[in-house]
């Protein structure tokens, strides 16, 4: 076989607790991040992602503690994002036990931070976020602040730039789809995946197992990220792997 499609549950963390925002606004508490991480490790998730959505407002100490405790009990790759602005922020997370850091708004205001982290710690540990909304036919724009603030930056150009600067992979999130459970923006995902040589993670809007499959077959993503469908027990990681395999895609047994 070849490299497997990665199924990545994403835990949105705020103030040390797992939450899931519907369009990043209404938050529901869904538990302790370390316990959730342990459960996903046991369930055979291919990777795990923590996004600290409180990072811009709260202290970072809680997050570092969670990352450290998670790394002690989880033996799968852990990506941590939220509030990473400098190579120093990245270093603190990597030292705490993160394998990769996701750079979000800083990659919009100061894309050089991606090159800086790549240079210091290697491309393999940087996931650059591309948070976009559709603004016209075949056109997407980068939005910040949880999808509320437009930037005027073309999403495809931005994605190419981040890959050139040394991002090891791109986390492409449709801010239109996020929290809606109506599926990834497949056009956006495919436009980016077909233009860059690094892997693309599809994100934003998963409601069914079929959405995961489409992220790969129609979105050309290398990995599929989802939150609610896993967190609230609607589907298991094993079901996600099985759905990918039934569609003829490589996934872990």
């Amino acid at each position: 076989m070849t490299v497997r499609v990665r199924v990545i549950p994403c835990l949105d963390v705020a103030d040390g607790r797992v939450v899931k925002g519907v369009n990043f606004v209404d938050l529901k508490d869904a538990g302790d991040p370390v316990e959730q991480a342990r459960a996903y490790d046991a369930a055979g998730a291919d990777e795990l992602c923590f996004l600290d959505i409180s990072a811009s407002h709260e202290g970072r100490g809680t997050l570092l503690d969670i990352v450290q405790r998670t790394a002690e009990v989880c033996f799968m790759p852990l990506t941590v994002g939220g509030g990473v602005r400098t190579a120093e922020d990245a270093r603190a997370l990597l030292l705490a036990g993160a394998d990769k850091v996701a750079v979000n708004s800083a990659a919009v205001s100061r894309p050089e931070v991606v090159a800086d982290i790549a240079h210091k710690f290697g491309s393999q540990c940087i996931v650059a976020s591309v948070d976009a909304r559709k603004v016209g036919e075949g056109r997407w724009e980068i939005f910040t602040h949880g999808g509320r603030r437009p930037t005027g930056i073309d999403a495809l150009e931005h994605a190419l730039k981040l890959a050139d600067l040394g991002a090891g992979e791109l986390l492409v999130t449709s801010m239109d789809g996020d929290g809606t459970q109506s599926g990834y923006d497949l056009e956006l995902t495919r436009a980016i995946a077909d233009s860059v040589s690094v892997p693309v993670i599809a994100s934003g809007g998963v409601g069914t197992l079929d959405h995961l499959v489409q992220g790969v077959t129609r979105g050309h993503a290398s990995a599929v990220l989802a939150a609610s469908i896993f967190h609230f027990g609607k589907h298991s990681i094993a079901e996600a792997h099985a759905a990918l395999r039934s569609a003829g895609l490589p996934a872990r047994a």
Partner: protein
Amino acid sequence: MTLALIDYGAGNLHSVANALRAAGAEDVKTTADPAVVRAADRIVLPGVGSFKACAKGLWAIPGMVEAMNERVHVGGAPFLGICVGMQLLATRGLEHGSTKGLGWIAGEVRLIERTDPAIKIPHMGWNDVSLGRKDPAHGLVEAGEAYFLHSYHFVPDEGQDVAAMTDHGGGLVAAVARDNVVGVQFHPEKSQAFGLALLSRFLDWKP
């Protein structure tokens, strides 16, 4: 049994130390001290980032490479290199210019060739660990699925040093081995039960 986990500034030490402990290692010494390496029963060399940066970090520790040579080649201590720690076994690496490696297993570390636009670099994710007919790793490496994360790959001069292969747009070496030295391109510390089982076997490995 003491295990020296070499700290040469190449990141991910905690992950490897955590996984070794979870695999049953009781005395893991994370160290930059050549004297500790000389006294260790087993040695693990981790590594993430570029070949050049890792080689620079390792050679920057006075006496470390000499201590490793002595303990592994004269003393016969079992040695495990992980990811860039495996690549450093090569004669040279070609990432950011040619850099000398340990030269314990003859070969070169080259950029993965992108034979098809659908092949993404880095090679990132779970992939096969497939064994050949011969087993230079003396039972340490078993077939299964492991987590890979790399853009460069080890091309040994001698086919007999290849312990396992994987496939990403063509065959890539997943593990190399010679005598008491083994290197794995994948990350056992990030490969859940498969990886922990490999680390556990390494703790008892008698090459």
